[in-house]
């Protein structure tokens, strides 16, 4: 079959173009480290990578949010621990005040101590974490308790909801935890103060079971928060593992195999040199050179 000169050199030029084009693609992969940069590079892989990126973004956000939730819950638990200490101290005061050897004046002195313990309890209940009153229910911008123990919050309670559906309570109904001026821990401490100031030994003794019940309530709340903290810790671990897995999947989907790419570049370079050398040699062969 005759090969015309034009066809011959066009084929050579096309070969050089093709090899150069392949070289360009390989070089881009080497420079970016990516095999898939545009949807057309691998439509299915690109689409899957998009989903993985969204999932990774959600997981990263969950990890950051979990840290914030843990911070608030740790502070809440700390406040509850202080409240429990105040109640325990009040129980010791009540035991002392109810003792038959203590006179009215001494009971009044103990009453002042208990007043201080009540103030500590209310201070703990009014925990403000980052501008949020944790024990106000949904009324997070209002201090839950007055100095007299009147509750100003509501019965609500908000939860942090993570992308995997996990829900962790982050604000609480303070009245349910601490009672108010007539109920629960605050009510019991108020009653104790009144009884001690009046020298009422029966009233003083009656405060003990109330305080014990209040302490149990605090303990129950702490247990619940502890469980939430454990869930948050697990969530962080799970999401971090998820992020690693997502990254691995992403790398496999879109990253270039650098060793393979470097080898491909070497091969293309050799091919290009061979084609150019062949073109150069062929230019010396035509009959016109021989006839000349």
């Amino acid at each position: 079959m005759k090969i015309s000169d034009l066809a011959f050199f066009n084929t050579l030029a096309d070969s050089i173009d093709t090899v150069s084009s392949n070289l360009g693609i390989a070089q881009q992969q080497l420079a970016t480290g990516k095999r898939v940069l545009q949807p057309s590079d691998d439509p299915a892989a690109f689409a899957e990578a998009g989903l993985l990126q969204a999932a990774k973004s959600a997981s990263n956000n969950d990890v950051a949010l979990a840290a914030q939730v843990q911070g608030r819950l740790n502070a809440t638990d700390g406040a509850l621990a202080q409240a429990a200490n105040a109640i325990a101290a009040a129980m010791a005061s009540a035991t002392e005040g109810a003792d038959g050897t203590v006179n009215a004046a001494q009971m009044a002195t103990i009453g002042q101590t208990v007043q201080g313990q009540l103030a500590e309890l209310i201070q703990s209940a009014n925990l403000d974490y980052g501008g949020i009153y944790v024990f106000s229910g949904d009324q997070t911008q209002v201090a839950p308790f007055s100095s007299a123990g009147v509750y100003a919050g509501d019965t609500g309670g908000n939860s942090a909801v993570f992308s995997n559906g996990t829900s962790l309570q982050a604000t609480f109904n303070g009245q349910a935890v601490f009672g108010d001026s007539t109920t629960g821990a605050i009510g019991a401490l108020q009653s104790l103060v009144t009884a001690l100031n009046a020298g009422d030994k029966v009233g003083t003794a009656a405060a003990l079971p109330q305080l014990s019940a209040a302490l149990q309530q605090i303990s129950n709340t702490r247990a619940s928060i502890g469980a939430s903290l454990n869930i948050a810790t697990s969530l962080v671990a799970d999401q971090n593992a998820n992020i690693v897995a997502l990254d691995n999947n992403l790398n496999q989907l879109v990253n270039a195999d650098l060793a393979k790419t470097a080898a491909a570049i070497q091969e293309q370079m050799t091919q290009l040199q061979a084609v150019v050398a062949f073109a150069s040699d062929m230019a010396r062969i035509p009959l016109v050179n021989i006839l000349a």
Partner: protein
Amino acid sequence: MGVNLGSVGLSGVIAAQAELQATEANITNANNPSYSIESADLAARAGFGGVSIGVDVTGIERAEAPLLTSAINDTQSTESFNSAFGRITQLAQTYLAPNSGRDLSQALQDLFNSLTNLSFSPADPNLRAAVLSAAGQFATMSGSLSGHLVQISVEELDGLSALVQQVNDDSKEIAQLNVQIQAARGSGGGAGALLDQRDALVADLAGLIGARSDGHGNVSVAGVPLVSGTTALPLATTGTGSSTSLEVALANGTLQLPASQLGGTIGGIMAAANRLDQLNTSLTDFVDSVAGAINTQHQNGFGLDGSTGNDLFAIPVGGGPISLNPAITVQNLAASGTAAGVPGDGTNAAALAALAGTTGLVSSFPSGTPAQAYSQIVSDFGSSVKSAMDEEKTAAGSLQSLNQLKSSITGVSLNEELTHLVQFQSALEAAGRALQVANDTTSFLIQELNQ
């Protein structure tokens, strides 16, 4: 039997000259891609009793490969179509999937992330501002993407008029060449150079619009004539933007060319504009659906000021980009699920964030989440682009093979022509020598007779 020795030799000289002329034409056109090699057709001149008394040049023959030419034109049409389609859609792709890696899907996920964070601390002004910022970015990015797609499409379609002018110029030239070819053939000529010019113009039209020729100078596209004999029928664009179309002016009216049946660069441009239109429609449906679902949920919630029933996004009726509702502020962003729950209740923010995992928000993707719906849109478009790139590559490879085949018939091999040059030069010298001998013989005879 008397033979004119001079005329025998002279016929050889004339024949060798014709062969040399054809060879020289071939050599000088070696790099002319539309040239078909020519050769002198010779026939022995028959004398008394059938004896050869010389050689006649019966014509200049032009090598032809009509089937290959037609196949090459069709393949060129395919290559040009996919080249144009691929170029335009690859440009659109750079907006759909920016190098920064931050695309519309990521902007939407950022919005859902900000709502998740807000559900934890719904009264936090910074977190509220972050939601408004993320919502604004999603709206801005979607509008910008749509705008770019429309702009690419409009600019490419506006550029059609220049290509249509090229088509009309080629058609006119073909019609004129048809006149010249008729005249040349009528006077006994081969019209090789004219046929070469016409073939080149037909090939150009194939690459421009996917036109086809019947081999006799009549050219049509999608069954509609562009050149009929010696008459060129003008092509024109009508409409603007996405309603651009092409029509041919016939003797008694106009005929529209169906865009789906066009090939070449023009066909590729119109197909790409149509594909971008489809992409834009899909993206608009996606954005409007997601924004609509977010609005519906947002309406159920309560802001810090107790207000309810507000949209987060403004979705224009009848099309157009969405925007952040200008009436929405940090105060009335509806994070709470109940009026009584303000400000600490973040259940509505949580419900808004949960839309990320809700299927069926986008009506055209009933079983997919918003991220999955967007992924499918991007994947489908990427497949269109890849398909065009692959088909262009395949067509280019086929073109190479077909052109090689055709050139084996119609192309110039300098080695072959240089061999012919030597051959025909020798023939010319030999014929010239024979003519010299004939003249010398005749002179001798005349001299002898005169003595």
